[in-house]
């Protein structure tokens, strides 16, 4: 494996620290992997003999499966461990669990964890590459990259495009990673939703912040809905799901404020009838399932790039 140009990272922790050319390197590589997904024989040999461990301490369907599929497409052996079935539920620390995973021969760890900063922490105490699959409300880099990929597939260059992210921005790692990724690619990002979930302070990072839904949606090229995490916020951050839907849910009438060719995105899981009308989620404007498929290609690129750098660094040390 040779070291890829424009990519020197063994770990993928967040988008904030990436520059535009690094983001484009991943997206371009994902583009070529995307083509292989439609072939009758989908497997590539790039990670043959390597073991990828998905350490998922929080529930996940899409991200975990997509990382599994991506690693398998690259011929890696894949093991997925969940929080409830692991020793973390017996009081073992994250560091100890992850150290054991490394000792068992993992060549790369994909981590999903409820604590912001946990992938950075592991990257400092382990030797293997750490890929962040979502850490608390901090970052979800592979999601933002697949969103950027999907937007680029539709629009080509993102310069000057208005992308609106609606809903629970405060607790959303997807919103943060997308803000970094999309603004680095030249798009303007608007955060919309109730004041309790969309603090004005986000404007310090270049986001347009508004609580006026019409302003948020007007002339947007794409709208990305975020799942309302009602299990945690009802009663403190908004009065009820019903009130949320009536004030901020995306319905046909509100979708008409978007640009005519605007697309509707959602990282999933969807609460049908809460943040988005069921019919809109299934409409032709929706690219929600394209996002999921693109997520495989993007994660193949991430696994390939980080693994290459790791191999390259190891070879340099041993030579």
């Amino acid at each position: 494996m040779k070291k890829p140009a424009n990519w020197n990272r063994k770990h993928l922790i967040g988008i904030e620290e990436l520059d535009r050319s690094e983001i484009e390197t991943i997206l371009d590589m994902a583009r070529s992997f995307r083509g292989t997904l439609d072939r009758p024989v989908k497997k590539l040999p790039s990670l043959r003999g390597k073991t990828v461990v998905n350490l998922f301490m929080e529930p996940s369907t899409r991200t975990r499966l997509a990382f599994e599929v991506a690693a398998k497409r690259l011929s890696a052996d894949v093991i997925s461990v969940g929080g409830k079935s692991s020793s973390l539920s017996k009081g073992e620390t994250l560091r100890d669990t992850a150290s054991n995973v490394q000792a068992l021969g993992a060549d790369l760890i994909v981590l999903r964890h409820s604590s912001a900063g946990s992938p950075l922490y592991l990257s400092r105490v382990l030797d293997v590459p750490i890929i962040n699959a979502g850490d608390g409300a901090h970052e979800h880099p592979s999601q933002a990259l697949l969103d950027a990929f999907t937007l680029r597939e539709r629009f080509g260059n993102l310069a000057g495009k208005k992308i609106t992210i609606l809903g629970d921005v405060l607790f959303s790692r997807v919103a943060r990673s997308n803000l970094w990724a999309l603004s680095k690619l030249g798009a303007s990002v608007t955060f919309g939703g109730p004041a309790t979930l969309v603090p004005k302070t986000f404007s310090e990072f270049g986001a347009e912040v508004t609580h006026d839904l019409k302003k948020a949606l007007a002339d947007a090229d794409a709208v990305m809905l975020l799942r309302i995490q009602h299990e945690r916020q009802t009663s403190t951050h908004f009065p009820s799901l019903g009130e949320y839907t009536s004030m901020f849910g995306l319905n046909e009438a509100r979708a008409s404020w978007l640009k005519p060719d605007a697309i509707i995105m959602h990282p999933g899981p969807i609460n049908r009838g809460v943040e988005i009308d069921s019919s809109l989620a299934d409409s032709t404007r929706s690219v929600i399932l394209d996002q999921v498929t693109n997520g495989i290609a993007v994660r193949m690129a991430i696994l390939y790039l980080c693994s290459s750098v790791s191999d390259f660094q190891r070879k340099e040390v041993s030579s």
Partner: protein
Amino acid sequence: MSEAIWIKNGRIIDPANGRDEVADLYIADGRICEAPAGKESEVANVVDASGKIVAPGFIDLRAHLRELGGGGRETIASGTRAAAAGGFTTVVCMPDVSPAADNPGTIRYLQDAIEKDACIDVLLTGSLTLDRQGEQLAPIGSLKQSGVIAVTDCPASTGNNEIFRRSLEYAAMFGLPILDLPRDPFLASNAVVHEGAQALRLGLPGWPRAAEELFVYRAVSLAMVTKAHVHLQSISSAGSVEILQRAKERDVPVTADVTPHHLALTDSALADYNTNLKTSPPLREESDRQALLAGLLDGTIDCIATAHEPYLEHEKDMEFDLAPFGVIGLETALSVSLESIVTSEAGSVSDMVAALTTRPASVLGLEKGTLSVGAIADIVIFDQHQEWVVAPENLESLSSNSPWLGKNMIGRVTHVIATGQLIRDSSLA
């Protein structure tokens, strides 16, 4: 009776007496005296303090010494050694031991440990409420009789304003000050860092300034009503300084302290989720830091207190939101205060010494913190230019959860005299 000591040629800084001059200082029978106890050759201990500063021993109003139920994080022995290494000759020990210091038996136990193991003066506090739960008053009168000098639920603070009000009234009857770490438990319920841009960037739950300021207001309002003396601990926000300033203008009996780390650091240092920067209250923004520094120098904030909270390495070695709050501070207080106050030219060495000596003494009405003739000989000698590295092997504390772990520091204590005894002498090391 202790041996006589003659400290030669030091720069004596004694803010209570307005003194800053190079001179000798004499100690005999545990007290500071006018003249040497004999000829130089007859005095048992002659300490050459040339080029160094001789000051009253420092006084810390907030240290968590972990003697009981502390799981090896610290003990009275290690905590007082750490205090001495940092130049402190008096520390006020917080009641968050386990079981809590809410009864005379626990106080007695701690007093025995102090008698046996402490190398400096340790003053005990009792808890304000039973088991520090904030729901029922602790037996404050009995605690007073057992010898506590203040009551507090630190590092917690009851969210029940009625309990707080009654505890103020009740404690004031015994002349006991109430130490309060102002933190609204609801506004700060999940919070781990200051609520601001940095919290949003890091994706960590924010602790708004208002969570502190509301409770500073509460303390001011209830101190006014009850005439009880409330001392607010570890103030962190510019707004709190403003509230205190107005309260002091109206002679409300409130006082306050600030930690060295809040004078030195802001939440910008948190970029890499270092759990040794996770403190309660959190590190805030530069405007807060500046206001705290100005407040300390103009007297709105009465003194510096370390909030020394030891945790073992494995306890801090984890995810940021799950790690405990608190950092050690006894051994770095001098270096950090020198840098924040003196090197930055915000104030003089004398200002810094006052904030660590005569000013904390006057908060609690202690007859300490001066070098007056006849005073108990609690003295620190330090070299304000000596460099050292914060590393476990250089720390007396059993824990090393310092924001400055691995960093080079400037300013180090060389000698400590506690009640006339030379307990620390780096020339012998």
